[in-house]
């Protein structure tokens, strides 16, 4: 005798009606309508009614749309639904009542009027990862089945995802401005570029460092979580209130850690994600998170609270490399990723290389006059190095850079190779050169002395296969000379994938001489293609099952 059909579950209100999940008890699990036994839900952490209280805490906020809707096609007379797992993190709503989980009960008998009927319930969660199990039981026939409830993870974007919004802060102060860079970005990006107001945010131009945009998706909805760094404008306020200013329905912000514990490692130039990779048989559909930390000590990495938060995003399992040797200590100073459809996995890993930097420096006559480099180091306008020879003939600088390559850059390459299963073909070394920077009366560490070109803004096309790389102009050429005469630019032009168009922009004054580059002064939100979201969701469902 066939097992009678008990229930058919349908996950309704799907994004584009593409993810209809049907679940039956008696059909072949591989059949088209067999569906999934997992429901994916966006954590309800936003504030859709804008009353200052997160929706989860309100138990039913007005306009709240962050639920998964389950359609239960009930074929039984008496069906008992129970919730197993963390009762504090899941709610099941029937009409306007919480019937299971936080604020409800542990079990619920479907109302009599819905015997052998179709009813809808809504699932709400307050977390991510596997959170609970709904067990549906036919009381008469002693038959039951289960649905896993999974909160979707707020994942970091990587450089292969299409650019959606790019942020920069136009700033003008006496004697210093970023007019040139902002103008180039405006011309190139058009409406994609969004300006951060300098007066409101106290001329804190390091837009990369304060907000980290993350997103969670379910078939029903998506939600942006902006992680607000504890750096708080290097303790001065600055961009601290920028993430809250972006909050709207389906966009919320949160902070991990205490500002009093903040170090430079807590700025989000030190928090990035790789493109999708498979490592040792494990698929990471949204890539892996990486940041600078020595792996042991507090104070030389992001605070424990943010590390724990990142660890909880299992689909992007984080790893770290030592960046303590850098004065600013941000991972974006030495590595980046660019799309390349001809690469084995669709991307190239860019990493700073001293020898290539030295090659570029010595490829022009020592007497070659340099733009900007010769400006006064006392006022911080330049490096006091007026010619190519100022670098080429500096034996101490050369030795310092050689040691950096051996002690730090090569180990970083090895870590990325191991953690992302990189092959040689995926690694592209790019020219760079550093100095040992003295700051506030102590030896601070390495800082790019030729503008850090790897510290770039990758504006990615909709197809995720190319785009424009906005790169710091190295100015290693005489004043007035064409960019094409610059040996660093020549080298970069040769090294970048054909699908990535470089745009070399002037970030000298506010950024380079302030110990940052283009990436540090910008931020961006990226929109994953539906296929990427589906990959990520599949990953979560697989984990839950």
């Amino acid at each position: 005798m066939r097992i009678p059909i008990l229930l058919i579950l349908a996950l309704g209100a799907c994004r584009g009606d593409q993810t209809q999940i049907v679940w039956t008890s008696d059909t072949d699990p591989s059949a088209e309508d067999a569906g999934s036994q997992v429901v994916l839900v966006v954590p309800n952490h936003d504030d859709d009614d804008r009353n200052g209280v997160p929706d989860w805490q309100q138990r039913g906020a007005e306009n709240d749309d962050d639920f998964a809707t389950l359609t239960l096609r009930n074929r039984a007379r008496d069906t008992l639904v129970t919730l197993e797992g963390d009762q504090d993190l899941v709610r099941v709503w029937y009409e306007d009542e919480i019937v299971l989980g936080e604020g409800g009960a542990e079990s619920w008998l479907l109302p009599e009027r819905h015997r052998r009927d179709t009813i809808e319930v809504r699932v709400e969660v307050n977390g991510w990862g596997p959170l609970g199990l709904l067990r549906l039981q036919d009381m008469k026939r002693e038959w039951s089945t289960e649905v896993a409830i999974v909160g979707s993870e707020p994942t970091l974007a990587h450089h292969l995802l299409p650019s959606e919004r790019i942020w920069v802060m136009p700033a003008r102060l006496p004697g210093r401005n970023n007019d040139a860079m902002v103008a180039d970005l405006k011309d190139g990006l058009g409406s994609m570029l969004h300006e951060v107001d300098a007066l409101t945010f106290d001329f804190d131009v390091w837009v990369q460092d304060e907000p980290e945009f993350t997103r969670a998706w379910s078939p029903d909805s998506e939600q942006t979580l902006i992680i607000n760094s504890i750096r708080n404008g290097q303790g001065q306020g600055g961009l601290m209130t920028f993430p809250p200013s972006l909050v709207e329905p389906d966009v919320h912000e949160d902070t991990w850690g205490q500002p009093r514990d903040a170090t430079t490692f807590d700025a989000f130039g030190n928090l990035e994600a790789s493109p999708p990779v498979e490592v040792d048989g494990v698929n990471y559909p949204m890539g892996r998170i990486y940041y600078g930390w020595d792996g042991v000590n507090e104070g030389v990495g992001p605070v424990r609270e943010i590390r724990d938060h990142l660890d909880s995003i299992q689909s992007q399992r984080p790893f770290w490399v030592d960046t303590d040797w850098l004065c600013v200590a941000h991972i974006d100073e030495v590595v980046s990723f660019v799309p390349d459809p001809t690469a084995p996995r669709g991307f190239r890993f860019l990493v700073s290389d001293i020898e290539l930097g030295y090659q570029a420096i010595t490829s022009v006559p020592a007497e070659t006059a340099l733009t900007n480099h010769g400006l006064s180091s006392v006022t911080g306008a330049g490096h006091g190095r007026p010619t190519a020879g100022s670098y080429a003939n500096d034996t101490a600088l050369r030795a310092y850079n050689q040691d950096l390559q051996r002690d730090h850059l090569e180990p970083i390459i090895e870590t990325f190779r191991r953690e992302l299963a990189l092959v040689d073909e995926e690694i592209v070394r790019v020219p760079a050169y550093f100095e040992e920077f003295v700051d506030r009366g102590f030896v601070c560490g390495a800082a790019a002395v030729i503008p850090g070109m790897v510290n770039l803004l990758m504006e990615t096309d909709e197809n995720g296969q190319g785009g424009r790389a906005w790169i710091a102009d190295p100015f290693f050429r005489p004043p007035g000379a064409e960019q094409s005469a610059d040996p660093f630019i020549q080298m970069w032009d040769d090294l970048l994938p054909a699908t990535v168009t470089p745009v070399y922009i002037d970030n000298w004054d506010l950024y380079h001489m302030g110990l940052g580059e283009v990436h540090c002064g910008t931020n961006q939100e990226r929109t994953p293609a539906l296929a990427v979201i589906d990959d990520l969701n599949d990953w979560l469902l697989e984990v839950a099952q």
Partner: protein
Amino acid sequence: MTPRTSLLALLLLTGPALAEEPGAATGSSQALLSIPELAQQARADHPSAAQQIDQAVPFTRRTGSLRWADVPTGPELSAIWLDLALFGPEERAVRLARAELGAGEASAALIAAAFQVADDPRLRGSLLQHTRTADGSIVTAVLQPALRDPDPEVRRLAVHAITHRTDGPQHVGLLQRSLADGSPNVRAAAAFGIGVHGSPAQLRSLETLLQDPDAKVRLNALRGIERIEPSQAQTKASVLLHDPDPKVRRDAERIMR
């Protein structure tokens, strides 16, 4: 000495560089130099520039440190900057930045005077910021005393400045003395500097440091030997093949290859 006492104090300085300083006793081996008095004079001579200095708005570097743009600078204004750095009412970060900027174009004697007055080691360190590119008189007037500073980071900065000076090879003797410093950071910096500027005459000193308890010192000593006399490096590297520190071992293996 507190900043306020030093405000009233007249500094007793020695050295030939001081004879060139305004207010110094020309031709004497001793000079009396007061930064507040010099600043007061500079303010009287350059009232507009002084006002601009007082009102200048700093920029923030990505490290949180400060810098200025489009502000009046020059040797004639250095005393104003240094006076504000040493005795000004502002928070420490502003004073450190003022010290960096003020010392950048000051005479060796003025920096030396400020160096003696500054009771905050970070302030003394900030005064050394641009000594790498200052003229040769800075070595005797400022960097040599800084090598004897009670604060190890200040000593390290002095070694760093000497190493990165274009006349570094002339001051190998100073670097060599710092190989015996009590701070491993200073010894490591000195070993690096010897490696860059030294000659075979310093090899013996570097060899001794291969037994140093600090790994960074051993590493820099080994690399120093390699830079000065590559042919000897392999022999010396062999003793570090079983070093407890992986970086030292890795570098020894590299040299052996």
